[in-house]
Structures are given as C-alpha cells and as structure tokens.
C-alpha cells in the first residue's frame, strides 16, 4: 500500500537516509537543529528549521554532522564550499532564498566556478537547500512574510553557469531531487516552496532519485502546454481541470529542473500542442519563465499557433498585505485566462 508523507517529512527522510548511507554528508545552517539546540545546554531539536524539515536529525547524527550556525550566511556557506572541496558532501541550509544577497560570492564565484578556476582538479559536491515562495496566508489573518522572506528568485541560480537548480513540486519529487542533489558532484541549489511543506503525497520508503535535468509530464493534452515550477505545477493542474470543463485539453509539464533545462520535453510538447503558457511565481524579467518562452520561440516557432504566454508575479517585491500577496501570486484563474488567450486571441 502506498505510503503518504508530508513534503517536509519527505525531505527529512531524504536527508536521514543519505546521512546514513554516506558518512561524509553533513548538514549546516541556521536552526537546522533548532535555535541554540545543544545537549550541553539542556535542550536540542527545538524545531528543525522553519518548516521542520531537519527535525530529529541532530539526535541521530549528533552536533558533529548537524551544525547550527550563527546568522552569517557568507560565513557558513563559505565553510560549506570549503568542506565540499575537501571531501565532505555538505547540505547548507539558506533559510530563505532572499538571503542569497549576502552569500552569492561563495555560491557563485567559489561554489560554481572553482572547478573551472582550478582546471577541473576539484569537485564541489554541495547542496544549498533553500525556501522559496509567498506564505499564502489568508488575508483575514493579516500579512505574509513580505519582500525579504517570500521571494522565489531561482532565476539568479539558473543564470549562473556551473550551478544546478531544482524545484520539486510534491513530496515524491522533494525526496528524489534532494537525494539526487546530494549525490551530484556539482553544486545544486534545491528550492523548497514553503507552502508545499505541509502538503501530502505518496513517497516510497526506499531511497530513490529523480534525475536532475529532466522535466516530467503530469497530464497529457493536445491543445495547450502549461509549464509549472514548484508550487505553480499544482496551480497548472487545477487550471487544467478547469480548462477541461471548457473543452480544452491542457498538457501539464512539471519543470522540476530549472538548470539544466529539459528543452527536449518542452519542445516536443509544444510541437504537439502549438500553444504554451509558462507559470512562474518568480518575477518576470530575465526569469526562468521567459527563458522557457525563448527556447520555444527558437526551437518550436513553426509549430506555434498562438502567442506564448507567461503567467508570473508582477515585476515587484512580494507585498506584506495578505490581500496584495494573494493578488501577487499566479492563480488557476489567471492560468486559465492566459491559456484561453493564446488559444483564441
């Protein structure tokens, strides 16, 4: 019988199984144990990060391998790069993706480029695990986490050559992609949408990987291709249900890997449907969504039977107000409207 797990527990299982399998896998970051979680201070494992994804790991693997760090991303991400170069496989948790602003140098110039700077003499088997996305808090409950803690921003990583970047959309892909990221010999940024943390889905117990660089088609359709990223994949599936009610068969492609990009799956799909809508919670300028659109404009142009549409956040920081946040994030209604626009304009 299939077993269901919460998304955050699927990530927890991936980390635990990989740490059991490989003693060089370590975990570090702010609150990965839980605040000042140290046995000698009388309490450990208070919460295991904001989504609880690392809860319980310090009891099993000890403070040597589960390291609570000071609030200094540049310091501990830099340390993680050093550890990766010298033989460990660190998973460094960047609590929210917005904090990339203070540690882009160790991620990009060191993590991504060291292999190239040193003529291929080193590998950097590093995972940056980070939370993305708006809170989705109901407007009547007040505000969300605002501009500094709700970004998606993975386009920054996708833009850097030498970095891989993945974004799971459900518990199954969360576990599989996290294990694949840990086993990869190059730095991988693993983006975990905060609103997915509490969603449930089937997850096999035995360790498995979901290949990096491959998209998956979740629902076949012949009229329009909807491409989703992370939580937006679920939005696409809901939009596809509504489109079915209007007689439109939408194909849903779950991008999963933002870099490398699975151009073949995208091109093959649009060659069949002739229509593309890319749905992305990130801001639109220089984004993954626009990049997918450009690939299609290049490689499937003769098959396009309508304008390529992107449904993204507006080009603005994530607002605090719950009402504005709800208006900011792409919705199934917006996806349906875009699909009908490319089909009928």
């Amino acid at each position, binding site marked *: 019988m299939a077993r269901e797990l919460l998304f955050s527990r699927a990530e927890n299982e991936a980390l635990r199984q990989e740490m059991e399998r490989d003693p060089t896998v370590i975990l570090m970051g702010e609150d990965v144990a839980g605040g000042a979680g140290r046995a000698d201070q009388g309490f450990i494992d208070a919460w295991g990060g904001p989504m609880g994804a690392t809860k319980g790991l310090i009891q099993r693997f000890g403070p040597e391998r589960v390291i609570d760090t000071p609030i200094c991303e540049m310091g501990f991400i830099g340390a993680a790069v050093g550890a990766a170069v010298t033989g460990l496989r660190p998973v460094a948790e960047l609590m929210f993706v917005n904090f990339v602003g203070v540690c882009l140098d160790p991620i990009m110039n060191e993590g991504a480029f060291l292999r190239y700077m040193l003529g291929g003499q080193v590998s950097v088997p590093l995972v940056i695990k980070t939370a993305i996305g708006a809170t989705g808090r109901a407007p009547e409950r007040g505000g969300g986490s605002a501009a500094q803690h709700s970004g998606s921003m993975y386009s920054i990583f996708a833009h850097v050559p030498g970095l891989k970047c993945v974004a799971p959309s459900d518990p199954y892909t969360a576990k599989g992609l996290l294990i694949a990221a840990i086993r990869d010999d190059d730095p991988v940024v693993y983006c975990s949408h905060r609103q997915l943390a509490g969603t449930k889905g089937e997850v096999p117990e035995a360790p498995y990987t979901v290949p990096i660089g491959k998209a998956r088609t979740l629902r076949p359709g012949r009229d329009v291709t909807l491409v989703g990223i992370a939580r937006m994949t679920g939005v696409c599936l809901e939009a596809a249900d509504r489109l079915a009610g209007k007689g439109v068969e939408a194909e849903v492609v779950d991008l999963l890997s933002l870099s490398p990009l699975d151009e073949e799956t995208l091109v093959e799909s649009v060659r069949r449907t002739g229509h593309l809508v890319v749905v992305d919670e990130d801001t639109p300028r220089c984004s993954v969504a626009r990049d997918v659109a450009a690939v299609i404009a290049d490689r499937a142009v003769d098959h*396009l039977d309508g304008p390529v549409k992107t449904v993204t956040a507006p080009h603005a920081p994530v607002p605090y107000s719950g009402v504005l946040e709800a208006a900011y994030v792409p919705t199934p209604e917006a996806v349906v409207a875009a699909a009908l626009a490319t089909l009928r304009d």
Partner: protein
Amino acid sequence: MATELRLPLLGDIMTEGTLRRWLQADGARVEAGQPLYELETDKVSFTVEAPAAGVLRRLVTEGEVVQVGGLVGRLEEAAEAGPAPSPEPVSLPEPPVPPGPASVEEPVGPAPPVGPARLRATPAARRLARELGIDLAALGSERRLREADVRAWQAASERAAPEATAYAGRRRAIGERMVRSLQTSAQVTLNSEVRVDAVLDMIEGLNREWRERGVVLTLTRAVVKAVAVALGDHRHLNVRLEGERIVPREGVHVGVAMDQEAGLIVPVLHEVDRMSLEEVARELRELTRRAEAGRLTQADLEGATFTVSSLESTVVDAFTPIVDPPQAAVLGLGRVREVAAFEGSGVVRRRVATLSLTFDHRVTDGAPAARFLGRLADLLERPYLLLEGRR
C-alpha cells in the same frame, strides 16, 4: 528623343507577359536602372528596370497581357514632357510624383492586396500554408490566422465545385512540353528500392550541427548531391541529343521540380558538381525560398542537364517521371517507408525509398542506366561518400 519600352524576351518559350504592376507613377521622372514595372510570365516574375533616364509615359494598364516586343511605355526627355503645349493633358514633371502603384488620374479597381507585412498569421499557420502550397493572402482576415483557419480553407477549397479553367499560361507550357517529350523520345523507367536508414541518420545529425548556420538538409537535397556525384562517373547520362550528335554537357546542373499553386516549376541548381553537400543544402534552400517568393530569375530556370523530381513528402511510393528535353534522364524520389527486411536469419525494421530513373533510350541503354541507379543506391547507403570534398 524618347526611349521606347518594349516587353523583353525572358526565355526561349516565352511569347507574351502580363504587366502585373507599375512601380513608377505615370509622369514620374526616373533614372536609368530604377525599377519600372513587374512583368509576369508563365514561369517567372521579373522586375524590369529603366534602360535610360526620362519621364515615364505609361501606355498599358496594370494586368494587361502584352506580346513580346510590344510597346508598354516611353521614357521621354524632360523637355518633351515639360509644361509646354502638349496634345494630351499630362501631369507636370515637377514635383515628381512619389513612386507607388496607384496614380490619381487612373481609376483603379479593388485596392491591390496588402503586402505580406500586413498579413497576420501564426507561425504554425504559415508552416501549414507552406506545406499545402496555400497563399495565406487568399484567406484574408482581420484577426491573426491560425492553423485551424488554413485547414478550414483547405477543406473548403477541396469541397468547392470544380470550374473549367483556361488551358493557358504555365499550365499549357507544362502540358505541351510533356507531350513533346513523350512523343519525341524513347523513355524507359527503372525502379530501385534503396535503404535510407544511414542517410536519414546522417541528415538528422548534420542538421543538428548546421542548425546555427541556417542550413537544412533533406533527403531530396542529399539525393541531388548524390546525383551530381554519380553523374561524375556516368557521363553518358549528362548529355543532350542535338540532331545527329550526342553532346556531353559541361558541368552538372540539376533541375529540382517544385510544386506550386500555379503548377510545376523547375528551378536549376547550377554547378552541383562543384558543391559540397552543405552548399547543395544551403543553395537549394535559397532556391526554394526564391521560388516560393516568386523571385526566380530566368537564369534560375535554364541550363539543367538532369532533373530530380521528389514526391518524398507525399504518399507516393514510386512513379514514372518524364524527361525534360533536351536532357537525357530524370530521377524520381518516392516517400520513405518502413519495411520488414531479412538480416541474416532475423527480421529487422528498415527504412527504404524508391528511386525511379527515366532515361531516353535513344542516348543510352538499360544496363548503363541501371549501373547509374546502382551507384546512386550505393551513395545513399554509404552516405559518408557524399561528404567527400568538391568533385
């Protein structure tokens, strides 16, 4: 002294032409070399330039059919055309009328069709129209045309009741040429089924490599190259029969039959024997584009020493192409099909296409023609031979 503008002769079988469009207004001052009008024959569209400077006097209206050598207009010197007393009212040479198809004093019928720039169609609609040989302008729409519009138009035009059309123009030119060919030569067609797995794989690989260079290889284009290589070893098919003599031709110039709405057209790729495979692919793509845009020149239609007629993109397996005199042979290419074939004691899936060689039995015999066909099959089955340098 006025310069008389007479309809030029654009080829040996041309007898008349249509002045499709004036490119300068009546009374406009033009310089030598400026485009004057568009001339359309049964084979080509051609822009005629001013042979001298002067003030244009139009003598025929757009759409009129004029015999070769017929007077279509005059280029007058400024003094003749000046404001001095004149038997007929003419517009003043100053200021010059801006060039354009419409002139004020000439009542015209419906406005000329808007150019392709104003036509809105999705890329998929354009591709389908190209494949079906449909001119999108004929669909005319306020909104952007889609693939479904092209399909609907195609379906409607297939349903439309057939009407009698004139046996004239390009239709008649093709018809008379074909009848003359069959009545005056001894044509034999040989068919051979050829394995194309290797050449199709190579084409796919080369297209990936060449994509950035804008070069697209197809099976037909590869066959044109193979023909050039094979004719190098089989000169007896690269000849023309002139009365009492069989004369070898200089170089290999391959006519490639193309289907157009107005009928068959066979532009010629010249000096294929000097081209690499990539050059053949690139030049044939360019030739196809010019043919589709109606911009072939007379030179593009002359001098073929051999013809390739491809029905690769259709449902036809094999056929009997007709030799275009004075050429000695023509090669037909059918569609690619999958067949089950024996390999050792097992059965494998294999892709094949049928080559149909029609040759004129007056200039050569079945056995040498069969050897030529065998050489072609060999080149397609070992396609790396097509990658050798220029021959």
